[in-house]
């Protein structure tokens, strides 16, 4: 043994403590303490030998061992150490309370988990409903007073969520129409109906793809930004500061963002529709060997005003959902930076989920009314 030397004599066992008793050697120290050859009825005494260093960890390991032996009913003591560490450990006040340990066993823990999940979901739904209520009550309060509409904030958010999103939204719409055209043309060519590719692309972009992809893009860009911005303000107590100065945080932080999105998303959708049609035209000329004129005739034949309207009416609804979830998740941030990340993720995932849910509902409703 390196750190402990055992000497047996008539009076009992004397253990010489030597070497560096520091945290760096803790693993070795612990192992030697655990394997000391001791007998319950023979008293043991620890004494400093060639003890070169002793820090609190080393002292604690030794002190704990002695306490453990004493608890087992063995005579054990520390003698002749000139370190203050042992006295310090003796003098430490008793821990104020025990660790809360209600660990449930397997199956019950699982059941408790399901229960907790259900309760949390219920609370979250209630909170979402309450948030919706606050948005509308703030809206109703602000609506009759145009000077409180905060045009400046709305303009700022319109710029950040709309103008700055133009390049990426346009590019994505263009690319998705090319993807659709390629896939469609291959299949339709088998029936000699290659020309119908134009119908396929025009209708699917205008009715579904344009608005859906734009909404998903905006949810990723702006829904997350809303949650992170408001979340940081929440942690920095800016939201509380607003409240104490007599402002309504919903009026200042939430409403302008949602209004901006409701303005912006239909416009971005319009842009996406246009770019989708440009993509389709591009493909028709270069892949389907149609002339521009033929493409226009084909396109105008296949779509009506309602094809476009079916897509565009969904935009404000999607915009509201994204803004609502993004700002709500921001307001739900509490405490730490970790929470900002969590709520930002929640905001993106849930707003995309809700957008797709709403899209499915729209499809069902539109097919009922034959729109």
């Amino acid at each position, binding site marked *: 043994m390196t750190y402990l030397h055992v000497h047996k004599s008539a009076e009992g066992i004397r253990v010489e403590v030597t070497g560096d008793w520091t945290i*760096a050697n803790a693993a070795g120290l612990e192992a030697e303490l655990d394997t000391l050859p001791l007998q319950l009825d023979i008293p043991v005494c620890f004494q400093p030998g060639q003890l070169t260093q002793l820090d609190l960890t080393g002292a604690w390991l030794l002190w704990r061992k002695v306490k453990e032996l004493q608890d087992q009913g063995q005579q054990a003591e520390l003698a002749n150490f000139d370190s203050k560490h042992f006295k310090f450990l003796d003098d430490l006040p008793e821990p104020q309370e025990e660790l809360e340990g209600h660990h449930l066993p397997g199956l019950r823990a699982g059941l408790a988990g399901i229960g907790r999940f259900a309760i949390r979901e219920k609370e979250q739904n209630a909170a979402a409903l309450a948030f919706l209520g606050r948005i509308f009550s703030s809206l109703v309060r602000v609506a009759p007073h145009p000077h409180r509409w905060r045009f400046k904030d709305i303009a700022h958010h319109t710029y950040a969520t709309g103008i700055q999103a133009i390049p990426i939204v346009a590019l994505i719409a263009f690319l998705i129409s090319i993807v659709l055209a390629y896939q469609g043309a291959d299949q339709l060519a088998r029936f000699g109906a290659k020309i119908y590719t134009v119908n396929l692309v025009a209708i699917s972009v205008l009715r579904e793809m344009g608005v859906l992809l734009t909404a998903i893009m905006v949810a990723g860009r702006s829904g997350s930004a809303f949650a992170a911005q408001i979340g940081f303000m929440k942690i920095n107590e800016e939201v509380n500061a607003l409240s104490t100065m007599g402002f309504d945080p919903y009026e200042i932080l939430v409403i302008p963002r949602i209004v901006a999105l409701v303005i912006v998303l239909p416009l971005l959708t319009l842009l996406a529709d246009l770019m989708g049609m440009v993509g389709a035209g591009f493909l028709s000329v270069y892949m389907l060997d149609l002339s521009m004129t033929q493409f226009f005739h084909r396109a105008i034949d296949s779509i009506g005003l309602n094809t476009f309207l079916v897509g565009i009416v969904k935009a404000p609804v999607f915009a509201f959902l994204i803004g609502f979830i993004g700002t709500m998740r921001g307001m739900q941030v509490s405490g730490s930076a970790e929470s900002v990340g969590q709520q930002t993720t929640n905001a993106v995932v849930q707003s995309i989920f809700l957008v797709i849910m709403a899209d499915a509902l729209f499809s069902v409703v539109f097919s009922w009314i034959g729109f």
Partner: protein
Amino acid sequence: MAVQPIIQIRGLVNRFGTQVVHDGLDLDMNPGEILGVVGGSGSGKSVLLHTILGLRQATAGSVRIHGKDITSMDRAQMLDIQQRWGVLFQSGALFSSLSVLDNIQLSMKEYTRMAAATREGLANLKLQMVGLPLSAGSKFPAELSGGMVKRAALARALALDPPLLFLDEPTSGLDPISASEFDELIAYLRNNLKFSVFMITHDLDSLFNICDRIAVLVDKRMVVGTLDEILANTHPWIQRYFHGARSRAALGVKE
């Protein structure tokens, strides 16, 4: 024979563009002492701390810790120094994604090979040492009060039993009762565990009650001395700092 200083700074120069923050600053810190560092806002206390901690490269000069120059050190040597100091940041800087107990155990896990139960026992010992209830160990930093954050951060700084402790305004943001309890705690731990404390502070009570020596950062250099020496110093800034109304009140309390 004089003991080797635990921190020895010679000719330190720190410059941001044309702005000179430190100009030939010298400082010796003795093992086992509590050194209080004061200076006006913007006098470069934080820059000094960051330089000593190796977070910032000095423009010129040397910083020796345990006798070794940290400005010309390789990774392994630096790591050795880093394991022999503990730092308490002003806002605690507890990792918000870890529980208090995990915060304390982080460096133990990384640098020692103890059994998990022993490590947890040690972490609980640190909690007990700084006067936190054991139930605080399972909490996350966001759930703690300001005073508890400071104590938990102190427990983390003490995790590896460092011989050198840096405290950046440890009592700022605490009420006077918590602040003086925290001072007493630091003095009590220092007296028993014999580590050295480098403490940046604006708290006059801390300066008068627990600091062995005081270092004042004025005119880009250090004026170091015991409380009485500093009180007798005739530099106008030091005079105003230590003989203002607040200072007289703090001194009055002491006497």
